């Protein structure tokens, strides 16, 4: 038990050390384009003082390299920094949102230049550079320190065991030759000297090195996870979006979702208009004509008039059915009557497969959220019955952490991908208007789990009026 705990502790420390080194390395790598650019530039500047004619080709190559680096540097820098962000998210538990302004999609050189200009105009790019500099000038030491300490400690223990020093029974005797260590460190003073060259301190030094080395390793292993967290915080401070950038992103998001909402609202109105025009309205016109004809035949041929009346009755029933479907598509009656859980339950009952519904809400969500949630679930369920070849579907509804949460799970063959299906994309866009999100997990072979969340507050439950 105690052993396993010690192993876990050592493992955690070692893992943190390794992750730290990897992070520091990626950070240094991100600085490479800028560093190379500076090098080339300095070469050019130095060269400027020399004779240009003799150094012509070299000069040209340097210029080409500088131009290439300038053009691609920001892109690489951004990729590597994004990689750092992802690694930090995975290893340090700090979620850093991408701070960049959206870029236009680039085809062709001209647009690429425009893109580059936008990139350079983005303050986040320059903050990345600051982070690169901070990392290179010492930030990475924060995560490297425990690793160095462990190497030192191990080295000390190894020097004791490997007999790299002179035999212990000859302390104080001047060394005839240099000890056969691979690299003989220069004589040092204090603790470092004791650790690396314990034989210089006699038997006492030789035996003091064991607890000292072990202590160094322990401290380093203990400190490594904390230092990694500290490094993560430091990085988050520089790599995350500033308040200003956050607001800018928010405004951007709102502008996009607003125009989406307006677009889909307009499209919805057009659909309703078309449905009414081609459906109920047309049927009522036909019904009027049929009744007219029946009226004219009433005297001369009551039999024919009766047939026409039956036809008119049928047309009115069809018009009613169409209006009913239309109303259901605009605002489902159960949703208006009872709220979201019952409306979703009603949806489940209309599916052509087994459906299990569970959960409830302690109050009612705002009407637009209810409607968005309902139509999202309706679309998800339609997808399930159309594409998933499922036997059963489970629907769960709840309100946790200030958000409405609906999970639709099916036992179908999976493979649903929001990136490919335009339906799921549209769904995501419509949910985005409410800051809602859709997460779909659908491995090939199933099951598919679609989770949608819309942040909202619930009103207190309505008391029955009866």
């Amino acid at each position, binding site marked *: 038990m105690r052993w396993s705990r010690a192993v876990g502790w050592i493992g955690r420390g070692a893992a943190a050390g390794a992750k730290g080194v990897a992070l520091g390395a990626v950070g240094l790598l991100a600085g490479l384009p800028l560093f190379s650019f500076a090098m080339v530039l300095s070469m050019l500047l130095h060269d400027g003082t020399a004779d240009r004619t003799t150094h012509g080709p070299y000069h040209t190559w340097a210029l080409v390299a500088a131009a290439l680096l300038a053009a691609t540097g920001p892109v690489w820098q951004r990729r590597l920094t994004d990689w750092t962000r992802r690694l930090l998210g995975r290893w340090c538990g700090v979620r850093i949102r991408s701070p960049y302004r959206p870029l236009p999609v680039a085809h062709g050189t001209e647009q690429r230049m425009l893109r580059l200009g936008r990139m350079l105009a983005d303050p986040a790019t320059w903050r990345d550079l600051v982070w690169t500099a901070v990392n290179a000038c010492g930030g990475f030491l924060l995560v490297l320190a425990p690793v160095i300490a462990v190497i030192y400690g191990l080295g000390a223990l190894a020097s004791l065991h490997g007999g790299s020093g002179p035999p212990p029974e000859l302390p104080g005797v001047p060394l005839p030759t240099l000890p056969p260590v691979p690299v003989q460190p220069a004589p040092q003073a204090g603790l470092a000297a004791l650790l690396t060259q314990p034989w210089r301190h006699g038997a006492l030094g030789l035996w003091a090195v064991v607890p000292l080395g072990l202590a160094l390793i322990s401290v380093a292993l203990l400190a490594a996870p904390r230092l990694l967290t500290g490094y993560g915080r430091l990085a988050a401070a520089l790599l995350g979006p500033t308040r200003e950038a956050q607001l800018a992103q928010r405004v951007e998001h709102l502008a996009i979702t607003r125009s989406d909402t307006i677009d889909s609202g307009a499209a919805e109105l057009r659909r309703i208009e078309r449905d009414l025009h081609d459906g109920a309205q047309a049927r009522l016109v036909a019904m009027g004509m049929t009744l007219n004809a029946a009226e004219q035949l009433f005297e001369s041929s009551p039999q024919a008039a009766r047939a026409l009346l039956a036809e008119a*009755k049928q047309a*009115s*029933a069809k018009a*009613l*059915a169409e209006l*009913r479907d239309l*109303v*259901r598509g605009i605002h489902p*009656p*159960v949703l*208006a*009557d*009872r709220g979201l859980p*019952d409306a979703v*339950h*009603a949806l489940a*009952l*209309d*599916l*052509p*497969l*087994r*459906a299990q519904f569970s959960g409830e809400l302690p109050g009612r969500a705002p009407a637009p959220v209810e409607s968005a949630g309902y139509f999202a679930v309706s679309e998800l369920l339609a997808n399930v019955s159309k594409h998933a070849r499922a*036997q059963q579907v489970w629907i769960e509804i709840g309100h946790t952490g200030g958000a409405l949460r609906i999970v639709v799970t099916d036992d179908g063959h999976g493979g649903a991908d929001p990136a490919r299906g335009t339906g799921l994309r549209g769904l995501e866009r419509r949910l985005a208007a409410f800051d809602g999100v859709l997460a779909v997990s659908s491995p090939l072979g199933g099951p598919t789990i679609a989770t949608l969340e819309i942040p909202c507050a619930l009103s207190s439950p309505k008391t*029955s*009026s*009866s």
Partner: protein
Amino acid sequence: MRVVIAEDLVLLRDGLTWMLQAHGMTVVRGVETGPELLAAVAEEQPDVLIVDVRLPPTFTDEGLRAALEARRTSPGLPVLVLSQYVEQLYARELLAGGSGGIGYLLKDRVLDSTEFVEAVRRVAGGGTAMDPEVIARLLTHNSGNGAVASLSPREREVLSLMAEGRSNAAVAQQLVITERAVAKHTASIFTRLGLQPSDDDNRRVLAVLAYLNR
């Protein structure tokens, strides 16, 4: 037969009153809201209640809730619920008690007065009257059910009509077959669905509905 109607659209309420009276029934009270309905039930003790789902003051499922409440206070009170739309959820709630005397129809069905009056009579007599659309959707929901899928097209027709609440005689008339043929189909359906056969029309209907609503 004494009827109470709860319907807020005057035109429809008058039309219903006129139609029922033409068929020899008495409309003892026509009310507009849920609370009024409950009061009328207590005072008049009608033989059957005809209720619109959507009623004032809330204009939600006020009528349905009032009808369920009325059945709680006077168990077995026959109720026919009318609506502009039908929902399986509401049908389930109405049938949840497991006893008869329940109807749930689209308002469109009023257009066929003979059928409609027949449905009112059936409900008043403790029978069932489910809208064909409710049954159609119920069968769609059960399309993954092997037992239901194994029925022949004719048996499915018989099952639908039976689930709507019709007696064997009425099913025979509708499908233009003999009553004995219907009885044969019914027996086969009950065997396939693993249900206990019964000679009572009403009990058969309820068993089928309970099965489909599982």
